[in-house]
């Protein structure tokens, strides 16, 4: 069967790809370029656009709120990585064959399955200065209450802790699966060489968990840079904008009661995108190497 002189096998992949590639281009790839374009305009989302060149970026360079958000993004990125060792630790703790362990593993995984909105509400409640569990425990131990989410010094850390809860569960499950695949012969060989505890973990087990570690880093970095839900739910960026991250600040500028500055918002998004690009390129490079290795 031939069509327009092309063989079925040349034509087939394009027909299979067409619908998927089409929607992906329209909804994902094209909007990236549109956003970059919008960032050169002053636009309220409804009326006329005015071309203002790099003006949005110049303003951004002097915007204190932008630097606060950027700084918080960096804090998120660094602290979020704690989910990886924490997840490994729980995975090692649960990697046993006792009665009911499967149920334990599922229940430990729970926080990842529920929505971040619920996680945010749960933790707002946990931090509540008058009735929250955390402050009740602090009072019992003789300390004063700490209004975590109302204090500029603690608020970002408080939100990150809430985020670490599901993220640790995610890394845990990745490591549990990885541990299942660890070669028992190598472990036994290590034992014969008298490797124990930390040494065994570091020299024998961790190298075999490399794929799990890689995926954990990938999903954790993305999670940290995508942080939006928890900030929106728990503090709306407050108090006084001190817990904003770039993702939230952009949303605030473009869509909230603070006005509809699409161009300025787009400029913030472009900065966030550029940070992500570094990371995406690294990931693609690694995938490319793997592909060529086949």
């Amino acid at each position, binding site marked *: 069967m031939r069509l327009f002189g092309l063989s079925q096998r040349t034509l087939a992949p394009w027909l299979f790809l067409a619908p998927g590639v089409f929607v992906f281009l329209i909804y994902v790839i094209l909007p990236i370029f549109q956003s970059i374009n*919008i960032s050169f305009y002053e636009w309220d989302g409804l009326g006329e656009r005015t071309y203002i060149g790099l003006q949005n970026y110049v303003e951004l360079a002097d915007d204190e709120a932008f630097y606060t958000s950027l700084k918080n993004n960096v804090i998120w990125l660094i602290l979020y990585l704690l989910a990886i060792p924490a997840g490994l630790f729980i995975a090692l703790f649960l990697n046993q064959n006792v009665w009911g362990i499967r149920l334990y593993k599922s229940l430990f995984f729970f926080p990842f399955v529920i929505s971040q909105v619920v996680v945010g509400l749960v933790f707002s409640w946990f931090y509540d200065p008058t009735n929250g569990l955390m402050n009740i425990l602090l009072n019992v131990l003789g300390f004063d209450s700490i209004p975590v989410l109302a204090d500029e010094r603690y608020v970002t850390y408080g939100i990150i802790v809430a985020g670490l809860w599901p993220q640790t569960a995610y890394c845990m499950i990745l490591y549990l699966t990885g541990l299942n695949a660890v070669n028992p012969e190598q472990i036994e060989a290590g034992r014969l060489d008298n490797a124990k505890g930390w040494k065994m973990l570091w020299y024998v087990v961790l190298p075999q968990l490399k794929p799990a570690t890689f995926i954990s880093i990938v999903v954790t970095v993305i999670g940290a840079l995508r942080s939006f839900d928890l900030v929106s739910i728990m503090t709306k960026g407050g108090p006084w904008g001190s817990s904003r991250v770039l993702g939230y600040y952009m949303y605030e500028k473009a869509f909230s009661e603070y006005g509809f500055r699409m161009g300025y918002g787009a400029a913030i998004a472009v900065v966030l995108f550029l940070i992500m690009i570094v990371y995406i390129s690294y990931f693609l490079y690694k995938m490319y190497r793997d592909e060529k290795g086949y």
Partner: protein
Amino acid sequence: MFPVPIERRPTPLQWIYKVALPIALLLWLLPLIAVFLTSIRSAGDIATGNYWGWPTSINLIANYTAIFENTPLGKYLFNSFRVAIPTVIGAVALSCMTGFALAVYQFRSNLVIFFMFIAGNFVPFQILMVPVRDLTLQLGIYNTATGLAMFHIAFQTGFCTLFMRNFIKALPRELIEAARVEGVSEIRIFWFVVLPLMKPAIAALSVLIFTFIWNDYFWATVLTQGVDSQPITAGLYSLNGQWIAAWHLVSAGSIVAAIPPVAMFFLMQKHFIAGLTLGAVK
């Protein structure tokens, strides 16, 4: 096995482990347990600040009925299903095809297209936000479940393609070659040879995508507003604003919102984890 199996350890250590396990779980889930306990308290307990003492009465049924009767929670839940189910069907269907094309055929731009899907999958949502909202408005589907589902289908196709392509690539190539020698057309190879083998991948992706979409909050706030189209995540948040002092109701609402993905996870655990850990073991 690492660490050393506990049954090879001295007996006291085994006992310590067996006691530590439930305690650790309790601590890990403490925030959630606290929410559940709050959700069955009476309004009186909440008003007098009795959050942690023994509840004066157990209002499990009363509270959970109240949130459905006095708030549009049921409507929000329904909206969530209206977004999540079409997205699962759409994204899985599209990615079966794209995954097949990218795994089976060799052509020059194959890797470029594959990488486009992967890269797109990682971009921050904010860079898509303004144009996607605009597009949705222009298509006349702003503030509808359809509009939200359309975006989700397109975006999730990226991740699903990555998943499907790798899955099909791992299938034995001889099957396809043999069918070709027999003169089977490409579309029939897709439908009768490859698709039946993709069932585990389809199941894994379906549960995973359902959970992702159910839990989406960002796009729900960008593309919908109001009771008619908002899914449960955004709905819960707006209810939270109205119920400032009614923590027992907020808690009950949170529990209800968490049930579908949790149930999905427990019923399809094997598939869920298979989907999530793709690539973690190689």
